[in-house]
């Protein structure tokens, strides 16, 4: 009896979290304590709120910029191909490069602030990444710069797929161009917007490289993200159990975003 009581339960397959701390694997079940500890940590609490704020701002910025530039490019004027490519180019760069470049741009002493000073827009000067209040916005700007071109491409494809007959029918019915845009074009963009939210949303929830390069989560926890903390916990602190718990939380967060989309798209395929 005594032996059975002290023996470790070999339930590695079923445990939600392990006690693994240190280099050597330890699959002893820790039940839910890893998660309870995790959500009690100020750093992780900051991570969750940062990642939500970042995702919302990033999505809004990408969709507005992407849709705006797509509408402009859809006006059938000369040079659209040129700008189409220019807007799409940042997508070809890795987040590491984007992060490094924007870190230089945001340097409070010799970056964009100097430019603002030269054009007498001093009120726009900001410490950017050096201040806890503005650092996250710096990150959003860099990420949106890179990904809004992708959004533009999606919306442009959507706009071009709208048959001219639809617009003409609306015109025949006497609708103004503004009304056509609001009542015909915008509703047709809904599936594109949803796809953009899903694709960009999971990128932003998992964002790691950009943060690693630009701020490393600083100042304080102002730009820290769950993915960065997961890496730090495992490879800096040797807290493998905690890193695994963060990975599970990330998986659940991404699943919350993706699964409804999958269900919706499968159902609409059935209906077809």
């Amino acid at each position, binding site marked *: 009896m005594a032996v059975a009581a002290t023996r470790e339960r070999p339930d590695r397959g079923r445990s939600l979290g392990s006690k693994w701390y240190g280099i050597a694997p330890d699959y002893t079940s820790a039940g839910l304590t890893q998660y309870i500890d995790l959500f009690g940590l100020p750093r992780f609490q900051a991570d969750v709120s940062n990642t939500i704020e970042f995702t919302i701002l990033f999505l809004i910025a990408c969709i507005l910029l992407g849709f705006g530039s797509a509408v402009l490019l859809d006006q059938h004027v000369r040079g659209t191909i040129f700008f189409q490519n220019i807007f799409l180019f940042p997508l070809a760069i890795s987040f590491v490069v984007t992060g490094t470049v924007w870190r230089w741009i945001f340097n409070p002493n010799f970056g964009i602030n100097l430019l603002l000073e030269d054009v007498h827009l001093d009120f726009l000067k900001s410490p950017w990444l050096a201040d806890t209040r503005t650092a996250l916005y710096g990150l959003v700007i860099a990420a949106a710069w890179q990904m809004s071109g992708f959004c533009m491409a999606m919306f442009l494809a959507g706009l071009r797929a709208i048959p001219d007959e639809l617009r003409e029918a609306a015109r025949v019915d006497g609708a103004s161009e503004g009304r056509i845009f609001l009542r015909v074009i915008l509703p047709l963009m809904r599936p594109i917007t949803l796809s953009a939210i899903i694709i960009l949303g999971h990128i932003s929830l998992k964002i790691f490289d950009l943060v690693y390069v630009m701020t490393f989560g*600083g100042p304080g926890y102002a730009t820290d993200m769950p993915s960065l903390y997961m890496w730090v916990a*495992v490879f800096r602190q040797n807290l493998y159990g905690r890193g695994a718990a963060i990975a599970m939380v990330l998986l659940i967060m991404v699943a919350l975003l993706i699964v409804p989309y999958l269900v919706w798209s499968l159902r609409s395929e059935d209906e077809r």
Partner: protein
Amino acid sequence: MSSKWTRRQFVKTTGTAAGALVLGGAFAEFLAACASSSPTTSGSGSLEIFSWWTAGGEADGLAEMFKIYQQKYPGVKIVNAAVAGGAGSNAKAVLATRMQGGKPPDSFQVHAGQELISTWVKADKMEPITSIWNSEGWDSVIPKDLKTIVSKGSDVWSVPVNVHRGNALWVNLAKAGSSITPGAGNNLDAFLSALGKAKSAGIQAPLALGSKGNWQVTMLLENNIVAVGGADFYRGLFNGKSSWTDNNVKSALTYIKSMLNYVNSDHTTIDWDQAAGRVQAGTSVGTIMGDWAKGYFTANNWKPDTDFTGIASPGTEKTYMIVCDTFGLPKGAPDRDNAINWIKVCGSEAGQAAFNPKKGSIPARTDVPASIFDSIAQKFIAEFKTDSLTPSIAHGSAAPEAFASGVNDEMGQFVQKKDVNASASNIAKLADQYLK
């Protein structure tokens, strides 16, 4: 007939008296012994050395040690498996993956102290090198304090190749003028008033700080704890003899808070080297950083003790905050014999004399001639012999990485919120969690 005679002669010369059958066996063994013993002088196979020394003086120093190894064992092919990345953060991740996957390098760079002991030795991934330590007679040339932090139980687990000083203040001699005079009244209060004078003389940020990653602030903390509480108090924090809730810790934090009044506003976005750059440019007067900062200055054509100087950081005279690189022997090293020879080179006088001047550190051995070093290193070598040695938190020697990394996070909070009591109690909590 003649062949029988030769055989008999052979029996005599080899000294193995036995029948013809046994003799055949003995001869084969003799041949085998020849085959395995003769190449040990020149070596064979390969030697994979893992480190994060990829640039500048560090890589040069490593190359010098490779040269010495190659002279002794020309038959060995050295594989330099260095992984780039500040303070080894990327390299450590790669190493952990390799060790867990059962593919260790032959020898790897590891900071002395808890980074070695609580990460690798506790996980049973290392082989002790006690017999090498004893046969090479390192007891008489490497300080006992240093041996202690690479030991666990009765065994030694790695050999120190160098010692960096974590508690150093670097000043621009042209800018220092009379405001920060090295040596005189070297304590924290005098330092703060000197910074105040420099600021009122028009230097906006007399103290340069680069705190991206926060470990630089942890260095300020450990230096200040030593300055306030002394070396014994500091060492006691890690063996339970002194308490993290002590007022000395709060007082050390309060001094950092005061220092922050005099630092550059963009410190969270820059690293230590850019802070050193401020000192060289004259926009700041000094910076508190390890002696790798000296390597930055000399690489940028500054002359030691002419353009700049380095002294013990304020209030920490007579102590040496050690940041020490060592090489150990992982279990299952593919070329174990070559690795053992490598460890011998690392601990040898020739190896350390070749490595350290390039690296900018001082040798762990006390018998390397000081004349081959610059004037600041010579001063540090002399102080190293008499100072009391304290292990660094920020560089993995004093405490397990979970604690060090937790303190880094907390210092990141502290430079934002400047709340002495909250940070002191959070650090005490971390100590409860990871130091017991």
